[in-house]
């Protein structure tokens, strides 16, 4: 198959072609920019949902159940599950799929595992491109499971339309959820493992920090009663108030309890984004961040590929090491050389 054929087959959701296209994009194989140009006009239709939270909180289990729930509603789901690549060997053990294998024979679900491949956020550099492939292939939802450490939350916020932040009881006394910046990016809060003691406390902590951030409307009764009705009520209220108040939902991902409500809340969030015209804003932010990243990649690549700049960089680095100039001055010199 040449690439045009792969693209046209992938666009009609032929599994092998979709999968090959993902590899082309992930590995940046020869011609991948042409491929990207060909699929990009077909993107933008999927609802991209990011699932983030600490390792072991049940993200994979939840993604499995979310996919099952959307399937039962007749929707198709693409899943991108990211696990860490070892910085020492470059290898990776990708185990998220283990919890999703029951979907493997369902043509309406496509699961792809990825290593971070040296990228330091909670995603890989190519995750955005892989999401675009699944989007172009016509999956109604694209669900991304992040690594759940490092800068996952920040990265996923610039990629997903809806971010679900998973927390669990029993992670120690440190209030996980108040990690700086994290509250800002959660559109839906999921407290998983509600079968474990301490759920109420986690819910209360999330609510408190949402209150502090002025994000929680707080008129929806006790957290224990938060279920479908509440998610919908919250959503409705949010639309009326022209602002989204992130719901706090309790789940038992293993049994699937509460997962329908999570899906409901994600859908409600999307409706709210559309009504508010906020979707345009989010997608613009993603486009901007992607464009800047690619530009800086290309600039860096130009630097590293060009013998002249490489030689200059080396010379400047020696000067910095010998304390003859400072690193900012060297950086500016190098930039002059590159842009000239």
């Amino acid at each position: 198959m040449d690439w045009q054929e792969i693209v046209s087959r992938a666009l009609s959701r032929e599994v092998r072609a979709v999968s090959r296209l993902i590899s082309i994009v992930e590995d940046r194989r020869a011609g991948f920019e042409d491929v990207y140009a060909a699929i990009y006009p077909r993107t933008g239709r999927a609802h991209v949902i990011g699932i983030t939270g600490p390792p072991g909180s049940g993200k994979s289990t939840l993604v499995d159940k979310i996919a099952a729930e959307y399937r039962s509603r007749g929707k198709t789901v693409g899943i991108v599950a990211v696990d860490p690549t070892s910085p020492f060997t470059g290898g990776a053990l990708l185990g998220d799929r283990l919890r999703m294998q029951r979907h493997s024979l369902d043509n309406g679900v496509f699961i792809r595992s990825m290593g971070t491949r040296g990228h330091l956020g909670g995603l890989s550099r190519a995750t955005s491109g892989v999401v675009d492939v699944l989007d172009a292939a016509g999956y109604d939802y694209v669900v991304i499971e992040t690594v759940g450490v490092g800068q996952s939350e920040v990265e996923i916020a610039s990629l997903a339309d809806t971010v679900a932040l998973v927390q669990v009881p029993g992670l120690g006394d440190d209030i996980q959820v108040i990690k700086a910046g994290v509250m800002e990016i959660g559109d839906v809060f999921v407290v998983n493992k509600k079968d474990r003691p301490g759920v109420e406390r986690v819910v209360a902590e999330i609510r408190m920090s949402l209150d502090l951030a002025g994000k929680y409307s707080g008129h929806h009764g006790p957290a224990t009663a938060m279920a479908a009705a509440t998610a919908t009520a919250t959503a409705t209220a949010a639309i009326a108030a022209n602002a989204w108040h992130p719901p706090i939902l309790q789940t038992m991902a293993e049994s699937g309890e509460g997962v329908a409500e999570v899906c409901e809340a994600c859908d409600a969030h999307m409706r709210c984004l559309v009504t508010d015209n906020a979707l345009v804003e989010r997608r613009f932010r993603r486009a901007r961040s992607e464009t800047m990243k690619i530009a800086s990649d290309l600039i860096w690549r130009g630097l590293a590929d060009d013998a002249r700049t490489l030689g200059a960089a080396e010379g400047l680095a020696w000067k910095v090491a010998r304390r003859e100039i400072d690193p900012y001055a060297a950086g500016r010199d190098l930039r002059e050389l590159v842009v000239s």
Partner: protein
Amino acid sequence: MMDEGRKIRVLVAKPGLDGHDRGAKVVARALRDAGMEVIYTGLRQTPEQIVAAAIQEDVDVVAMSILSGAHNYLFPRVTQLLRERGADDVLVVGGGIIPDEDIPGLQECGIAAVFTPGTSTGDTVKFIRENIKR
């Protein structure tokens, strides 16, 4: 850039009802430590599930482990399904408790190599590196 391109992707799978998973995990870890991306799908997979996963993950290698004695049925079934889906460019290797006399038959069915107890994982790594079809 220099080395950003391809990584060897391997699906490590346990077909059938066999619950012996130590060997599969040892192999999975060894391949990871050799710089490969290893997708582990856990116990009790049907050949159909294994092939579907191999295609979605676009792996270079399917590595299966069987200690239960069902290899003469399960291994060839996987290679047959891969062929039917047009994915016969995937290298298939197997391991576990497999009598020597069964190995030639398995190789005829498209299992490129069989690794039994006592073979070092280093041999497996070397074999994969030298034999992937791309």
